[in-house]
């Protein structure tokens, strides 16, 4: 079964359905309540959880389990389909020349993720370069440079230049020979108007093939509004969820892809450049539903 790694209370509720071929309204209520709990504990947006559970409930009561399917498997299938409808497949990333722009809140993991993605592309046989446009955070240049040394990939930055847009332009020129350009940006949040204007300018100059929003797996209910504001500013094509090596479930990323009509591209699972994985829906959905 796709969802065999469920939280214990949800599993417990499902066990009580064992052997049943039809679900009563009460059965469905109980399952839906446990699913709500899991998703809320995973930081999925409260209103999105309610929408999701409403459609699960409606379908579970209306649709007949196909012959030979137990009621338990039927309701699980519905849950899975409804979740997949939101997360979708991993963001498509063609193995060809392209420019990727990273955006996100302060400390979400952009710089680390830039080096990780560059490492990932280099393993796929492409030639990546990271361009560091963060002129604000102390040590940002050195951090990105050192991470790129660890990833053994090309790096461009200019510690003497204070304008991120200039760095982006000069960086693209200087790394012209690279196949994949990964443009790192300073951290910012949706209420910082000047910084939002700045990333709009960077986006305009770079014209990325892919703008990725980098989200900490632990982000709470603010995920929705932040995602909305980044989407409005630069258009979000995909999400990278970082710090999944902790206990946070990453439900904010579900909210974000729903809000930006995009998908999840990569997962970050540690502090070294190799700690990157392509997104895979099954594992993520199981995590959201509880370990």
């Amino acid at each position: 079964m796709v969802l065999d790694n469920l939280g214990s209370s949800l599993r417990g509720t499902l066990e009580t359905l064992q052997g049943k071929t039809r679900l009563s309204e009460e059965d469905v209520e109980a399952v839906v309540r446990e699913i709500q709990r899991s998703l809320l504990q995973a930081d999925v947006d409260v209103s999105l959880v309610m929408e999701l559970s409403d459609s699960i409930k409606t379908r579970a009561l209306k649709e007949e389990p196909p012959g030979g399917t137990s009621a338990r498997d039927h309701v699980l299938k519905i849950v899975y389909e409804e979740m997949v409808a939101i997360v979708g497949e991993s963001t498509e990333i063609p193995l060809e020349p392209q420019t990727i722009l990273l955006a996100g809140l302060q400390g979400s993991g952009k710089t680390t993720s830039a080096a990780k993605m560059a490492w990932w592309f280099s393993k796929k046989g492409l030639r990546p370069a990271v361009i560091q446009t963060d002129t604000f955070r102390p040590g940002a240049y050195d951090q990105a440079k050192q991470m790129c040394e660890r990833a053994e990939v090309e790096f461009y930055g200019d510690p003497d230049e204070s304008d991120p847009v200039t760095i982006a332009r000069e960086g693209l020129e200087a790394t012209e020979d690279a196949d994949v350009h990964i443009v790192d940006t300073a951290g910012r949040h949706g209420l910082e108007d000047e910084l939002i204007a700045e990333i709009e300018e960077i986006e305009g100059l770079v014209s990325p093939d892919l703008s990725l929003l980098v989200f900490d797996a632990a982000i709470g209910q603010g995920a929705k509004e932040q995602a909305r504001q980044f989407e409005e500013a630069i258009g979000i094509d995909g999400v990278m969820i970082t710090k999944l090596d902790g206990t946070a479930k990453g439900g904010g990323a579900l909210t974000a892809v729903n809000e930006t009509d995009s998908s999840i591209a990569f997962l970050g699972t540690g502090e070294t450049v190799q700690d990157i994985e392509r997104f895979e829906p099954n594992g993520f959905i199981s995590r959201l539903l509880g370990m």
Partner: protein
Amino acid sequence: IIEEEDLEQPLWQLEMALLQSDVEMGVAEQMLDTIREKMLGTTRKQVQTTAQLVEEALHDALLDVISVGQFDFDQRIAEADKPVTIIFTGVNGVGKTTSIAKLSEYFEKQGYSTVLANGDTYRAGANEQIRKHAENLDRKLIAHEQGGDPAAVIYDAVEYAEAHDIDIVLGDTAGRLHTSNDLMAQLEKIDRVVGPDMTLFVDEAVAGQDAVQRASKFNETAEIDGAILTKADADSSGGAAISIAYVTGKPILFLGTGQEYDDVERFIPEELVASLLEDEE
């Protein structure tokens, strides 16, 4: 008389509101249980609705939790033997290093001298980052090579402070997730070897349900005296503060409100409660 079924709906709405504000579910449910107990069987006046009463009870419960252990931080610093050593802990990227720079400024404005110690000997660019802060603020920084022993760096800074009559040592640590056994063991060692006068746990206001996990793990590993909640400027309700105070029993002391050195404020429990309740309307 208020009965169980009168409470069901208002309590459910409150639970959703608390979750919407990022209060952790277990914490929210325990608070609501307390409210339920308190209200069952009480009588309400004609002018009050059950929802109003529940909301009042919630206000008190929230204030109770968030006021836990509040102490006069400035006074404790003033009275402590110098140098006072403060260590900053927390998961990756929450704002430990920036908060050290801010607090250094906070203390210097009150006439104390401070030295920064870079106990993050791990992350790329960590030395350069804190060195830049030290230069900007014209503070002494004690740092070792990358890969060095973090406890030794902070220990050196304490010796430096003693030899140079510095009042306060601000010791940084590398960000680490509470799930990393090795790094948590290292934190335990730093705490044991350095024996800080104060340990401040740093977390971010935008954090969701996970705040409970990490606050309790960090508090178990290197007992904290209080917390700093950063990125309070990023439009979140800051329910993480409730979660942290509830599970650690330690006070939130400061809010980080931006990326500049003076973007730090003393935390005021009543203000958070007011803003949490406001969000619900």
